């Protein structure tokens, strides 16, 4: 199956570690990918140093979008909001460990778009995410 559906991706899709919602959050944002109807909402809690202490995602979508959301949240917990600014397309692809074509890239980057739009506002997100 090429390497597309690496065990990691299917596993994190079936058994996500950070799926759910936070009753109280400092940041909460949602968006969707009209191509496939993927929908992701991310809730974040930060401490007084602006370090992300808790994060959950909810919604529905394909294995790529769900696994990348789960891996992304794992990656950003413990990082500061300033550090999250530096998370890029390449970070996500590294986390997933696969190459993606332009169509599936939209699935993979939806969670990053939601995360950044939630923290910094839609107008502040990276150009490559705006064009998704």
């Amino acid at each position, binding site marked *: *199956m*090429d390497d*597309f*559906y690496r065990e990691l991706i*299917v596993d994190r899709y*079936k058994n996500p570690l950070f799926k759910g919602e936070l009753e109280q959050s400092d940041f909460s944002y949602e968006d969707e990918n009209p*191509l*496939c*109807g*993927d*929908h992701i909402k991310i809730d974040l809690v930060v401490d007084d140093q602006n370090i992300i202490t808790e994060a959950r995602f909810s919604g*529905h*979508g*394909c*294995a*790529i979008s769900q696994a990348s959301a789960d891996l992304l949240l794992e990656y950003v917990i413990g990082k500061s909001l300033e550090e999250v600014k530096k998370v890029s397309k390449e970070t996500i692809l590294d986390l997933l460990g696969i190459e993606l074509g332009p169509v*599936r890239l939209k*699935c993979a980057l939806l969670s990053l778009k939601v995360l950044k739009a939630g923290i910094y506002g839609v107008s502040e997100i990276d150009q490559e995410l705006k064009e998704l």
Partner: protein
Amino acid sequence: MNYNLEKIRADFPILSREIRKGISLAYLDSTATAQKPKQVISAMDEYYQKHNANIHRGVHTLAEEATTMYENARIKIGQFIHAKYAREIVFTRNTTESINLVAKSWGQKFLNSGDLIVLTEMEHHSNLVPWQMLASEKNLELEFVSVNEDGRLDQDTYKELLGRSPKLVTFSHMSNVLGTINPAREMIAAAHEVGAIVLVDGAQSVPHFPVDVQDLDADFYAFSAHKMVGPTGFGILYGKERLLDMTPPFMGGGDMIKKVQLRSFKPNDLPHKFEAGTPAIAEAIGTAAAIDYLKAVGMENIAAHEHELTNYAFERLLDVENLKIFGKNDGRGGVISFEMANVHPHDVAQILDSVGVAVRAGHHCAMPLHEKFGIPATTRASFYLYNTTSEIDRLVEGLQIVNDMFA
């Protein structure tokens, strides 16, 4: 039936390419767009190599040749759907533009505040959004014929809605998601009884079975060349002469005028009054070649072949666990949309792609229909004249891989 599938497949160069090393293509996405036979490709190529010129202007030999080829395409397309006159055939960019032409020109002039348009829940966005736009602009009412569990239109709702005297009724002849073939002739007759004008979205019907617009008595009928082995960028709007005559022009520009002064113009005769600017000439010629091709195979034969494939697919898909097909295998064309428990259609399609099987995943430009069935998206396999039962076997094998991976 004398159906030479091998010969047909040999006419479509793309069908013999490998998707990746050692993996051949099983193209089950013709409802999105059909593949093109070499006859269509070379007709367009030859036009550019030997006849290229602008049409309806210039008197040189090339201009004469190009104009003749372009207008012959109109005649051929008109005959293909049994229009009374070639001038009832208007060229557009696609089905979507054909429908927008009716909404923005006919609808703009003849629909007024409070008027009712009857549509259906199974419409493609292209036969929904133009009416939503017009409705909000002119304060029109939209009502929808519901879709039953079996994937068919609820004819009782339809009759009820006709009782409210709609000005326009519009529906797809065949659903691009469910494959349902709607009883167009009966629905049109019933709409005419209450004085409604009827527009039929024929994007999925004209490519797959014989269509006779006069027998149907359709007022407007819209379809696209690219779904019927022709080129992209070429759409057709059929309209009854009387209706097209009273409809104001769509876009303004060259070719759609008879006379222009600084502050006024006089529109051209049918069908040119709706064709502003230099049109898709090569695409018109390619569409004529596509019609020649489909006619040589025979539309009845194509319909019968797809019927066999659909029956075969229904039978084989029963073997696949966790799979649910939308709609019944009865009165439908070669389109099967399905859902697999706990697997997103994108993942289904991606895994199928890895074994060379091309299907569509998503909402197929019919979000309201998916909402009705309570799912965001489906996977869709669709069949055309060149598909084989062994491609359906490959689909089934691919779906078994999906189950193994996600079970």
